[in-house]
């Protein structure tokens, strides 16, 4: 028997006796079907924090949480507005090199900054990326409920672009904002569905942080110290 078979045999033997349902004390098993409402995604939704009723409320919630998390959010009228704000930021922070990926929103922005740029598509040198001051990416969704950004290796130029440079800039459209986590997971399933999954998807909630030293919050533990979102 292989080790795999041995483990599965032990599991199946163990599962011959059923365990009591959670919350039902007593040693004898009382079988209950998991209530559909609880298990269904709509069920989880009604117990999670309230993201607000409409897209205006969601935006407000996203901005409020972002402020708590120290994510900077800029509301922009159009792409030209993003580009001019990006140029200001580049100047203010003294960027010398940017990293980006090929994308209808991102490529024009990288060009507009007019600095040497590394593109991750088709592979890159990690040492070169480590020298970049900023990583600019698109994303799949923004989540109002938690102030998060949902992106994947496919939508955001790989695994490292959004975590290795010290500043992560996200450019997104306002209609990418979803109210809550269940909606975000539904969206991801719609986008990538059966076995089309990118090898990495991540929910980013604020810049990199740690509280490991005396539980005092410090930003930029290993990942970006700054997270900026441009919302068109």
């Amino acid at each position: 028997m292989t080790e795999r078979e041995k483990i599965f045999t032990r599991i199946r033997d163990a599962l011959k006796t059923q365990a009591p349902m959670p919350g039902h004390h007593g040693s004898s098993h009382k079988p209950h079907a998991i209530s559909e409402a609880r298990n269904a995604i709509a069920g989880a939704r009604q117990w999670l924090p309230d993201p607000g009723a409409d897209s205006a409320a969601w935006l407000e919630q996203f901005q409020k949480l972002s402020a708590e998390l120290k994510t900077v959010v800029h509301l922009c009228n159009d792409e030209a507005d993003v580009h001019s704000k990006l140029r200001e930021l580049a100047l203010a922070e003294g960027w010398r090199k940017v990293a980006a990926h090929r994308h209808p929103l991102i490529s024009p922005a990288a060009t507009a900054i007019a600095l040497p740029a590394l593109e991750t598509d088709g592979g890159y040198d990690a040492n070169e990326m480590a020298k970049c001051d900023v990583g600019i990416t698109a994303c799949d969704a923004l989540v109002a409920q938690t102030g998060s950004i949902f992106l994947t290796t496919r939508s955001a130029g790989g695994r490292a672009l959004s975590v290795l440079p010290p500043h992560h800039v996200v450019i997104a459209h306002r209609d990418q904002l979803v109210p809550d986590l269940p909606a975000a997971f539904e969206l991801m399933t719609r986008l990538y569905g059966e076995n089309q999954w990118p090898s990495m998807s991540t929910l980013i909630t604020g810049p990199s942080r740690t509280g490991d030293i005396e539980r005092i919050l410090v930003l930029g533990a290993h990942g970006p110290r700054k997270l900026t979102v441009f919302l068109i």
Partner: protein
Amino acid sequence: MSDVAIAPRAQFFEDADRITHDTEHRRRIQTAMGKYYVSRYSRQALFRNWQEARQTAAETKWAALKELDKHLEAFERNATARGTQVHWTSTGEQARQVIVDIIRRHNARRIVKSKVMTSEEIHLNQLLEQLGYDVIESDLGEYIQQLKGEPPYHFVFPCMHLSREEISDLFENHLGTAQTHDPEELTMIARRVLRQKYIDADIGITGANFVVADTGMISITENEGNARLTAALPRVMITLVGIEKVLPKFSDLALFLPMLATAGTGQPLTGYNTMYAGPKQPGESDGPIEWHVIFLDNNRTALLADPQQRDALHCIRCGACLNVCPIFKNVGGLSYGTTYQGPIGSVITPHFRGLQDWKHLSGASSLCGACTETCPVKIDLHHHLLHNRRNAIDEKRGFLEGMLWRGFTFLINRPKLFSLSIKLGRLFQPLHALVKGTIFDPAAAWTKSRELPEVAHESFRDYWKRRQSK
């Protein structure tokens, strides 16, 4: 496998005694936990119904374990379809062997790790260091503990017991950096040292918080970004995970991720929740060319076989039960001598490493139930401490204790003899003062820190008789 030099019980009592008398240590823990309380419970209050959310989480885990074999098979099927290599190991020894084989096959030298609690369980670092590999912990707290040569103090807050001064000393000694007492500067020192390590490493080792069956993903929760870098830059990625970490559906994460964050640290969501579905796929710009997922049993199936305590496998390792535990806050995390500290550690360690060696942890509890109350997946923790006590006695009865109970049963069944013994007790109690605190004291264990209550001047029987005859 166990490499404890002294008996776990003796070590526990010795360390617990020392730490409970260290007021500075306790103050530090209390301050940290005070901060936790504020953020956790205010975040929890934002849930529209936390109790229903808990019940749903508990039922989801219950259902996941009920069909654990099917979910693990589904994971394997979905993950291997994208080129992931899945390994199955029954013991720590086997898991270590699989890891060493992968490292050797790639002629790797440098290994970077993100937080992997299961690797503490199988003493992976010690082995890899012995074999001469350069192994580095990248989570800040774990890195500090690695420099200190100590296991993690708390499985969520690994170095919460250290002051910034101690950390500064550690950095000065090991890295030659200048003294600083600013947490931010200390963090930046570690950031600078570790950054190059990710880029240079041949192999990245991670743990996993959830194994998602229907999509063949693993999900990693972290705040620092070190796990993301560990999974992005090295050529080969290894994930070591316990077989119980399964969630049936991708959408289950929508509930579990915010609950883990709320119970663990009081955040709306932890900084990074990353789902890995395979090694680098065609058309992707980076990522490891090989990904190995190693499933570890290490006696988890023994716990699964106990239907009464099976729910201990629901644990999502949020650490909340440690944070609220009055015992943890007094004896400290290292006293436990276990990979998993606090109430959950006291419950599962006897299953993983032997009931008789670890039963004392189940005795070290006030049974206040704070752990059960706070657990986001409703594990019946304090009852499991009682179950462990019962099972330990059923398995091995103490001779003296047995005699004592038999004597008591004999006495209590004979009213005349019982009342006589009470009278004798009353008569002889004053003599106890003569031996109190000496080795002749029969009640020494009790009187060491307490007073023996005085035997009542009149027994209830006598009182009742007197009252009736009035």
